């Protein structure tokens, strides 16, 4: 029997959530409402007595100081509309789970608890007592703000028909359905059209070529003979088909990055590229490591869930960045939450396992003030922004991992798919129990153990779904909601198990679920045998194939030796974490999965992993030509400066930053916000992971998708340069920086839907060429990376593709964090320097974007020159000669000068004529050109000579001084004063746009 316990705030107690929702109804939906109150509803499916219900309501469920409760009656009264939002069956309900645990501790009785929330809305009463808030308004509030129909249901109640004594009837969203697990067999011996249909209907995302390979595999006599021994025939099982589709998905196999590409460079030359991954990314890292020789500090690159580098003799650092774009488009909160707790498991499941020490997140959205009609199935960008922000907040904060930095990028083309990049770093002892920790080993006979959460239907088809564009039939089950606390409990347990040597190898369950985690690790021993029937399920009714590929979160897979298994399981029990032996690893050469006694999958390991032939693709580069904007230098450059500071890609992101805990774990050194009142924009984060040492590390990002509109080569080069110079700016040495590449592209395979696929693939080729060129020159090896190649939206005739986007992230070791430098000016009288040369490079700039133009003069990286500058600047920083250092990126020098000044609360007096420049005759162009590898640095007068000596041979100039008055004074090329603005006004312009 089910009961409802409703919890509301007492009269007179502020309902902060209600107030926030009210603000959004009024501000975003432009609907008049007078009041919004919230009521938390717990629907308890169990056998509790009235006394126990009251005890639960009074005890863990409500706070006696501020709340009151109602059992099996309505709490709300005197409203116009009540909207109750609850989860659909099977959707993760973290609060419900916690409530059930609390009630079980309290009463000793097992119950299931489902939560929902009521929004109790009162309309404005005017003198005529008209109904100002209609049902249509309430429906709009429900669908556009409160509920996501993919995962939630909502009920709208009219206040006039409400009877509180009756309340609402308990609704139990239990997963219904018959519990008759079965395995279907599919005949692939059929014509192409039928094969295509099978792939499409089952969301397999397999091409016709791939389907044909499966068809032919099942005609092999040896295969058939072996299959016969375990009771399988010539037809493929659904579990086999699904397992192969996951393993062979673009998401897991990176088919495009590994393809053979014929690249036409647009100048009459065609080159064969045998895998971009091998020839650009891996090759660069290999060459850099060879150059480093005995000093090579890379430990594990591209082979594990994350990259591993040496921190010092005793500790290693681990880093990985992933994206979670498609799920975040459908359910921003759940998608992003799953993104962050998902990427947490990569460093955690890397080598022997790392303790997680930082997150860094980069989001690309359409502008939150988007005002045009929305295409079908697309949520408003503001909702995506808020949902993603909150998902990452809950995922990061509740896991106790500091979100040390990140950034937000805005472009209308992210309307179809937002990009949600989540990165996580970890630290692991270099050796444990005498053995290195950065390698993995499994021997036949080791047990396959799954630990953490249970398996449900959530996240089925995540890997294949993200391998195609967002379309009408995109599966709802691909959406899932992470549970950070279940994961935290699991990681607490596994770190203890790791240190006690209770397991041999660890990996995470992400895309593809068990099929992927066990399939991958089984390569280390040469096979495996599993029984899916042993898997703990969230609810009955899952078919074997669903158990195999479900992407239910918070699960790790471990290889445990038989002699350690008792210790492992008993520690898990003690620490209240579920752990289950599912089978064992073998050296049979077969991926063998049973459900009880019945074999449901038997695939050769070699076919599973190497049966997929290399794709052959064509790429053709034709440089685009854009109109050059035609406008003259504005008279009011101070006004222009403020306009630039208010650009979404430039303005302050403080409202987001503050909602992330960036200091937990106690090692925060350079925070995301800095300066005299803690609100200036830091270039990079500096962290001290070991509290009894001053060694530290730097984390930085670079991203500039707009440049792709001109040439993705330069987009990539600039992104890498930005990530590197941000790290340099706070004090990292260039020779200890590692990189991570994370490519998000629009479909680059030519097809009917993508007629310009060859151009998009050429963009990818060029971006990779830049990656090779710049990283090898800098000596910054990539240690891990990821790609997401289908960031398109297609419903009906509407197609929206993202601009090709590379996020480059850097992780660098710093010998002594006390040498770190921040971007804010420090003292009046300090000298202002510009480092690096400014060219007329406004193509793709914010200055042109402000005028709706793209242009053609894209910024270029002069890597050799920049390298010398970075090394010289680093020596000066190490010598303690630099008071402040801020890099120039979006908005160029002008924005950097303004930020440097207002962050430090002091003015600047500078002269543009002193700036080292080439080919620029206009003040606006000099101020807003986005040339790369530049910094604004301030130096105390006493350090002038020493500083300049360090920089000898590099392009730099002293352009002015820091002044005590809070004014930015800039003299132009003609000698006249062109800008005189209060720094408080500049700061206000910079802070305003996203201060909601």
């Amino acid at each position: 029997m089910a009961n409802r316990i409703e919890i509301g705030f007492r009269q007179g107690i502020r309902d902060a959530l209600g107030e926030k929702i009210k603000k959004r109804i009024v501000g975003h939906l432009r609907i008049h409402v007078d009041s919004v109150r919230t009521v938390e509803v717990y629907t308890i499916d169990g056998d509790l007595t009235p006394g126990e219900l009251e005890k639960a309501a009074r005890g863990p469920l409500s706070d006696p100081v501020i709340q009151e409760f109602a059992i099996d009656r309505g709490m709300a009264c005197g409203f116009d509309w009540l909207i109750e939002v609850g989860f659909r069956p099977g959707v993760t309900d973290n609060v419900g789970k916690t409530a059930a645990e609390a009630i079980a501790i309290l009463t000793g009785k097992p119950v299931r608890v489902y939560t929902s929330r009521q929004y109790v809305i009162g309309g404005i009463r005017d003198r005529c007592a008209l109904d100002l808030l209609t049902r249509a308004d309430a429906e709009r509030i429900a669908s556009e703000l409160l509920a996501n129909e993919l995962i939630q249901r909502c009920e709208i109640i009219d206040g006039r028909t409400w009877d509180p004594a009756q309340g609402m009837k308990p609704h139990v969203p239990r997963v219904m359905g018959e519990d008759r697990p079965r395995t279907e067999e599919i005949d692939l011996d059929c014509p192409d059209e039928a094969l295509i249909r099978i792939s499409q209907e089952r969301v397999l995302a397999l091409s016709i070529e791939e389907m044909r390979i499966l068809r032919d595999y099942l005609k092999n006599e040896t295969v058939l003979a072996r299959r016969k021994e375990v009771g399988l025939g010539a037809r493929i099982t659904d579990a086999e088909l699904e397992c192969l589709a996951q393993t062979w998905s673009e998401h897991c196999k990176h088919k495009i990055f590994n393809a053979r590409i014929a690249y036409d460079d647009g100048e009459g030359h065609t080159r064969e590229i045998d895998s971009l991954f091998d020839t650009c990314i891996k090759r660069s890292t290999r060459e850099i490591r060879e150059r480093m020789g005995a000093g090579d500090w890379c430990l594990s690159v591209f082979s594990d869930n994350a990259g591993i580098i040496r921190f010092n003799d005793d500790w290693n650092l681990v880093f990985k960045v992933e994206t979670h774009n498609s799920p975040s488009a459908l359910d921003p909160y759940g998608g992003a939450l799953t993104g962050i707790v998902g990427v947490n498991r990569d460093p955690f499941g890397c080598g022997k396992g790392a303790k997680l020490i930082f997150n860094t997140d980069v989001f690309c959205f359409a502008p939150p003030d988007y005002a045009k009609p929305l295409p079908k199935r697309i949520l408003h960008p503001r909702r995506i922004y808020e949902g993603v922000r909150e998902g990452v907040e809950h995922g990061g904060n509740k896991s106790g991992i500091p979100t040390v930095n990140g950034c937000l990028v805005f472009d209308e083309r992210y309307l179809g798919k937002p990009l949600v990049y989540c990165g996580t770093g970890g630290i692991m002892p270099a050796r444990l129990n005498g053995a290195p920790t950065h390698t993995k080993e499994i021997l036949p006979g080791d047990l396959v153990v799954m630990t953490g959460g249970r398996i449900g239907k959530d996240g089925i088809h995540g890997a294949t779904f993200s391998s195609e564009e967002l379309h009408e039939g995109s599966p709802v089950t691909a959406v899932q909601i992470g549970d950070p606390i279940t994961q935290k409990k699991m990681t607490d347990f596994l770190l203890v198990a790791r240190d006690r040597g209770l397991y041999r190898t660890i990996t995470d369950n992400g895309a593809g679920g068990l099929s992927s985690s066990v399939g991958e690790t089984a390569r280390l021993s040469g096979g495996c045998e599993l029984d899916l029937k042993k898997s703990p399920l969230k609810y009955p009714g899952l078919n074997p194939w669903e158990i195999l590929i479900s992407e239910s979160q918070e699960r790790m897979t471990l290889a445990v030796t038989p002699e350690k298994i008792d210790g492992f399981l008993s520690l898990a029990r003690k620490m209240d974490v579920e752990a289950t032996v599912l089978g064992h690893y073998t050296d049979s050469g077969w991926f063998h999965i049973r459900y009880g006694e019945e074999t449901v999958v038997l695939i050769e390991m070699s076919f599973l992993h190497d049966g997929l032939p290399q794709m052959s693709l064509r790429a053709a580069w034709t440089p685009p030509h854009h109109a050059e904007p035609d406008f003259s230098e504005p008279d009011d450059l101070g006004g222009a400066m403020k306009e630039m500071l208010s650009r979404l890609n430039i303005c302050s992101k403080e409202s987001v930053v503050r909602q992330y805990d960036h200091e937990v774990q106690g090692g925060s050194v350079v925070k995301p916000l800095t300066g005299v009142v803690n609100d200036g924009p830091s270039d990079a984060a500096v962290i001290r992971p070991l509290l009894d040492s001053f060694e530290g590390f730097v984390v930085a990002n670079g991203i500039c998708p707009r440049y792709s509109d001109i040439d993705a080569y330069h987009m990539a080069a600039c992104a890498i340069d930005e990530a590197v110079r941000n790290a340099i700016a706070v004090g990292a040495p260039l020779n200890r920086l590692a990189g991570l590449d994370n490519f998000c592209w629009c479909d680059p395979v030519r097809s009917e839907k993508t007629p310009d696929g060859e151009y998009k693939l050429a963009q990818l080729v060029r971006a990779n060429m830049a990656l090779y060129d710049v990283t090898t020159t800098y000596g910054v090896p990539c240690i891990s990376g990821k790609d997401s190649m289908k960031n398109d939206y297609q419903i009906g005739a509407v197609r929206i593709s993202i601009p090709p986007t590379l996020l480059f992230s850097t992780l660098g070791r710093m010998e002594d964090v006390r040498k770190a430098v921040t971007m804010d000016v420090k003292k009046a009288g300090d000298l202002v320097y510009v480092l690096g040369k400014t060219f007329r490079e406004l193509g793709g700039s914010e200055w042109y974007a402000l005028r709706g133009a793209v242009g053609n003069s894209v910024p270029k990286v002069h890597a050799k020159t920049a390298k010398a500058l970075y090394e010289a600047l680093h020596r000066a920083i190490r010598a303690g000669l630099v008071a402040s250092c801020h890099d120039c990126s979006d908005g160029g020098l002008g924005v950097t000068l303004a930020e440097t000044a207002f962050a430090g609360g002091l003015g600047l007096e500078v002269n543009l004529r002193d700036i080292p420049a080439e080919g620029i005759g206009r003040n606006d162009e000099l101020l807003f050109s986005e040339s790369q590898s530049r910094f604004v640095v301030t130096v105390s007068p006493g350090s002038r000579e020493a500083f300049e000596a360090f920089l000898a041979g590099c392009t730099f100039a002293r352009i002015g001084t820091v002044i005590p008055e809070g004014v930015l004074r800039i003299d132009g090329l003609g000698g006249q004063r062109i800008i005189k603005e209060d720094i408080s006004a500049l700061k206000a312009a910079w802070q305003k746009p996203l201060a909601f």
Partner: protein
Amino acid sequence: MPQRIRAIVITGNGTNCEMEMAHACKLARFDEVEIVHISELLHGTKQLDDYHFLNLPGGFLDGDDLGSAKAGANRILHAAVAGREERLYDQFARFIAAGKLILGVCNGFQLLVKLGMLPGLDGHYDRQTVTLTFNDSGRFEDRWVYLRVDPGSPCIFTKGLYGLYLPVRHGEGKFVTLDEKILERLHREGLIAVQYSDENCREATLEYPANPNGAVDGIAGICNETGRIFGLMPHPEAYLHRTNHPRWTREELPEEGMGLALFRNAAAFLRSANF
């Protein structure tokens, strides 16, 4: 011969500041500092009676899913300790009765309040009379705040301190009392050890963002009548070294962070006490 002093830092179920809290105890020269997972207490392999200083660090107990620290408090109040005829709460009660020290930070403060251990008026350590609820802003915030210290408070931890500058990192930190009478008693008995204040640490403030959550009378932390149980929303363990300070690159600061003083006071008190 001064007494050997032992600190315990409880973790598990979503606690996440245990490492820096333990580090603070080490810097304050506790003889033994142990991070103990709550399962060890529930399984009876460790017990509170063996320690002198109980640290309840920040985090999100059970995700704060039922309201901050609610499910965590429920566990301590009702879960039985394996192999013993007692609940975890009984060990807490003995610890308090023995006159030992308890410090709850952020989620640990929320836990103490929801267990009823703070303010624990008239020695009732199981009656909730105050709470910490959602910030007025309706959002989690990480920002540094100035704190005024009440020199007349019996609080052991803040003895000799004038003011503090520490980060808050919470979504549910607004201090509220059941009624005016309780608020008035907290003031009268000096139990309000720290208040959000202006940057001179002189005047308590209600103004956002100096008062980051809308706490009544700017209350940031309270102690019980003996001053031995203390809870606060700001994080002293997050400021143990000058490089933790948000403006360390522009201000002359002592090497040691301000937060450490609280732990030093705890150590000094315990060293001179007899148990």
